[in-house]
């Protein structure tokens, strides 16, 4: 009977039941039935007992795990670009950067207290140099590659020189290598390492030894290699390779197991016992033999995971605290990560934020919020990640199940979810107080639409709109006018293709396609479908140019009849205005401009009414709509916070060269070029007043929306008549309305 006692221990069965069992078994051991009964009981008890749960044990136990790296922003020179930052001695760092975009003058700053305070060092010879790459030596000297002759833009001349406070010494014999120079480093033996894009070339400046090439096979930049003593650590695809700089031979390599697409930055541990590397998933330490990998800092809880941040350099000190050099919103920042043994290992409060699709703005807001609240962790749950077979439909059903069981996520991103239904069913909490706290900051036309007497159950954090720019477009108010305008142009070239038509025009058509009671307005829909079908026919020869910057470039060279598309970020307006300035003609306006244009909401925030952490969730929503979180530019939409939009609009001086480039029409072979200059304050106020006059689009069922897009596309392709399309859509919408009646 000992096996029963073993069962008792394993399954945690109460001892009384085991005694009863033993008694019963002894009574009728000979019977075969008894064995069956025994099996039934074992099955029954196994179903009723609990397994040993790690989480439970942790909860029941009094031990709370502590010890975590805490992040802090350090005062750093207000650089817009850093050419290099190097640790030249213990606790001493030197950096070379500029405060004028990428252009001179360059400044050298130095910190001798582990990055806490910085002071400028004057290098007179740097005054007018256009530096491409540089690196500091241990004694504070600087190797730099610069453009020595820019008289002919097609054949710029480069030179590499040694610069210190005394002056400049041009290096001879490396002119040719300087042409392909994307970064510099110095070895312990004062050899120069030149980054040539996908490999590093080690050059003996005395010219005694032949250059050694270290091939990465993947793009290299300043953060992806580091020299430590006589070793070179270089990040290559999934591996970090270690080379001996004396011999040029590979002496080791470790595999990085993180699943990240962001660039990897490497550094060595000060006692040479391991390698640190970081990407957007966090900071990791890996032993030199590659056997042990540990996550030192969780990317989701820190700057590492923020979409607006580009990691540039990582500098561990002897206490294994870190300095992280990064670029965020066109500004260079230095962050310090110091280990606090008393900080909770995991934040004490955990919230779940659900979104059907990944949203950079939300990721950024979570990062910022968690940085302000170290005791709160928000787990970002992206339902349709693309890495598995889960469809949007599966995800929605799963969400419904969780919400109905009372275990739903705390915060919901309601994009492509049935918002109206969620509100009707009382799933969403009232956000009125949170929104009213920000009322002066938010766009009034948006808050008026979402705030009602019954409450505010959802609010968009971002928005897009559609714009049209061109010559003589003053009379273009409706889709019909637009198609007539394109028809009247001699070349009829636009960036619109039949495939894009429904995607572009659905948000602006849908308000007029449905009556107040939700039924289809058949006559309007028929007219619009007929017009759009005609647009599809005349656009069938067009090439897909969906982005406003590319359209502006082409239109500026008269390669398109007009600019038409979705405005997702303010930066695109600099292209549109620059194109108008270049042609010295044309205007820009929202489309359609019958009722002031249509705003398309995105990153729509909602809070689960049944959330146990509803107060924190509402606080997060308020934070996500605040200036601090909204003052970031992403291609997924413009801020609904007016102050943040203004701040983004003023983030550059008017006339600042924002970007630009060339476009080639592969059909005609024509080249178009446009340099985008940042818009003026007057133009910014024009954009804002246009946005203030627009109305938020009416959301309808996402399922119905998908059917409308699919069926209308069939109609434009010519595989289905307008009558059939209308009949199907009428049927679907009627059914949808009946279901919800």
């Amino acid at each position, binding site marked *: 009977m000992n096996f029963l006692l073993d069962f008792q221990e394993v399954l945690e069965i109460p001892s009384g039941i085991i005694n009863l069992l033993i008694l019963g078994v002894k009574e009728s051991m000979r019977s075969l039935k008894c064995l*069956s*009964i025994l099996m039934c009981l074992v099955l029954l008890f196994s179903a009723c007992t609990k397994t040993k749960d790690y989480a439970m044990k942790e909860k029941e136990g009094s031990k709370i795990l502590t010890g975590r790296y805490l992040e802090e922003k350090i005062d750093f020179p207000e650089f817009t670009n850093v050419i290099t930052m190097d640790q030249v001695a213990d606790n001493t760092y030197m950096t070379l950067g500029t405060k004028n975009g990428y252009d001179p003058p360059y400044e050298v700053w130095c910190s001798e207290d582990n990055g806490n305070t910085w002071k400028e060092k004057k290098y007179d010879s740097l005054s007018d140099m256009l530096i491409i790459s540089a690196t500091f030596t241990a004694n504070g000297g600087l190797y730099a590659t610069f453009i020595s002759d820019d008289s002919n833009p097609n054949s710029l001349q480069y030179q590499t020189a040694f610069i210190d406070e005394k002056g400049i010494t041009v290096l001879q014999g490396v002119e040719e290598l300087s042409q392909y120079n994307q970064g510099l480093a110095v070895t312990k033996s004062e050899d120069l390492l030149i980054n040539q894009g996908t490999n590093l070339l080690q050059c003996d400046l005395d010219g005694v030894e032949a250059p050694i090439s270290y091939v990465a096979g993947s793009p290299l930049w300043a953060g992806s290699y580091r020299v430590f003593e006589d070793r070179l650590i270089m990040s290559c695809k999934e591996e970090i390779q270690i080379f001996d700089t004396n011999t040029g031979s590979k002496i080791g390599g470790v595999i990085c197991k993180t699943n990240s697409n962001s660039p990897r930055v490497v550094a060595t541990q000060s006692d040479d016992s391991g390698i640190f590397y970081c990407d957007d998933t966090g900071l990791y330490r890996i032993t030199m033999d590659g056997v042990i990998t540990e996550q030192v800092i969780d990317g989701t809880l820190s700057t590492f995971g923020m979409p607006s941040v580009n990691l540039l350099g990582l500098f561990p000190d002897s206490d294994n605290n870190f300095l992280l050099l990064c670029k965020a919103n066109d500004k260079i920042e230095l962050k310090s990560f110091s280990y606090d043994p008393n900080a909770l290992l995991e934040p004490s409060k955990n919230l779940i934020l659900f979104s059907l699709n990944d949203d950079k703005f939300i990721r950024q807001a979570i990062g910022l919020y968690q940085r302000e609240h170290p005791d709160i962790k928000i787990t970002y749950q992206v339902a349709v990640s693309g890495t598995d077979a889960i469809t949007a439909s599966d995800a929605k059903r799963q969400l419904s199940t969780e919400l109905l069981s009372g275990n739903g996520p705390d915060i919901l991103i309601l994009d492509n979810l049935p918002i109206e*239904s969620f509100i009707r*069913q009382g799933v969403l909490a009232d956000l009125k107080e949170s929104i009213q706290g920000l009322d002066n900051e938010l766009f009034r036309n948006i808050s008026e639409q979402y705030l009602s007497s019954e409450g505010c159950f959802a609010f968009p954090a971002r928005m897009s709109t559609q714009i049209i720019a061109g010559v003589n477009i003053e009379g273009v108010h409706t889709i019909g006018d637009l198609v007539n305008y394109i028809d009247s142009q001699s070349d009829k070239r636009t960036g619109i293709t039949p495939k894009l038509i429904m995607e572009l025009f659905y948000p602006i058509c849908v308000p007029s396609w449905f009556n107040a009671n939700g039924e289809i307005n058949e006559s309007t829909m028929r007219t619009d479908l007929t017009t759009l079908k005609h647009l599809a026919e005349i656009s069938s020869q067009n090439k897909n140019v969906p982005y406003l910057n590319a359209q502006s470039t082409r239109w500026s060279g008269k390669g398109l009849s007009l600019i038409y598309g979705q405005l997702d970020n303010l930066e695109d307006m600099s292209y549109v205005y620059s194109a108008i300035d270049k042609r010295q003609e044309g205007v820009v306006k929202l489309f359609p401009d019958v009722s002031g244009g249509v705003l398309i909401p995105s990153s729509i925030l909602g809070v689960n009414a049944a959330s146990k952490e509803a107060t924190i969730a509402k606080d997060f929503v308020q934070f996500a709509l605040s200036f601090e979180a909204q003052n970031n530019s992403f291609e997924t939409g413009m801020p609904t916070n007016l102050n943040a939009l203004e701040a983004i609009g003023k983030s550059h001086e008017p006339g600042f060269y924002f970007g630009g480039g060339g476009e080639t029409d592969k059909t005609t072979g024509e080249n178009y070029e446009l340099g985008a200059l940042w818009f003026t304050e007057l133009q910014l106020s024009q954009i804002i007043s246009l946005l203030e006059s627009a109305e938020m689009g009416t959301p309808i069922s996402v399922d119905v929306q998908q059917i409308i897009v699919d069926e209308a596309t069939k109609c434009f392709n010519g595989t289905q008549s307008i009558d059939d399309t209308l009949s*199907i859509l009428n049927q679907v919408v009627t059914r949808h309305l009946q279901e919800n009646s």
Partner: protein
Amino acid sequence: MWWRWFTRREFHLRPLSKTSHEILSFIFFLLPSFVGVCYFVLLPFADVVRRSFTDTMASKFVGLRNYSGVLRNEAFQLAVSNTVRFVLVCIPLLLILSLMLALLVRKVTIGADFYKTSFLLPMVIPVASMVLLWRMFFAKQGFVNSLLSCLDIAPTDWMNTGWSFAVLVGSYIWRNIGYDMILWLAGMSGIPAALYEAARVDGAGPIQCFFFITLPQLRSSLLIISILSILNSFKVFREAYLIAGNYPHDSIYLLQHLFNNWFTNLDIQKLCAAAVLVAAVIMALIFVLQAVWGQEECR
């Protein structure tokens, strides 16, 4: 704790009588499955019944409001009428065709196993693959329309017209006919051969044998096959959903489409009320079938 009672010294098992032994055995054998059924079927159904009288988040009792709402809902009425129409068309058709097939297969002496297996094949084809096949056949530019155009017949949009109902019926019968045929064959194998021999001695022909021996003897099988076919008919939603999505043509808009859409839109209170109504109707139907055919069998 309740189990401490068992560990007390004064507690002893008395010798059990034979009847008590048997009862205890029954209980122990039934207990695991009974617990399973309770946990996975009865308790959830009880919760569905409870939720049918509350609002969405089950926080407020609303009486019969959900039921009246569901009964007045036009989408529900359409779904019910389509489902009933589907069952009324499909079940007799399936029963008759599968019975005929069973009779034919029974007559085949060479390769009978091959035929049985062949007719069962549609059951093992995954639904997703089958749906692909249907799409290839019945798309507007699909195989059937290209065949029709060869015969100078105008193409039809099979899935967006009334024809979609016929396509769904065909799909259901094609998939289930083999299964029902096997059930009929199992029922036929239980009919004593002596009955046929005696009838033939008395001068009965094959038709008389079928109507006076086979059919009456298959009554108990008919009950089981009918119930299973009705239950299987509800599974046809998978095909309809995968072919035509959440909002198919009106003629194949079934109860499960409605339930699925209600669930996604969190209209759980309506869904529960409708589920209770449907369960009640199905149970009533089963009781009626059992009462009618079961009584006749007893006679």
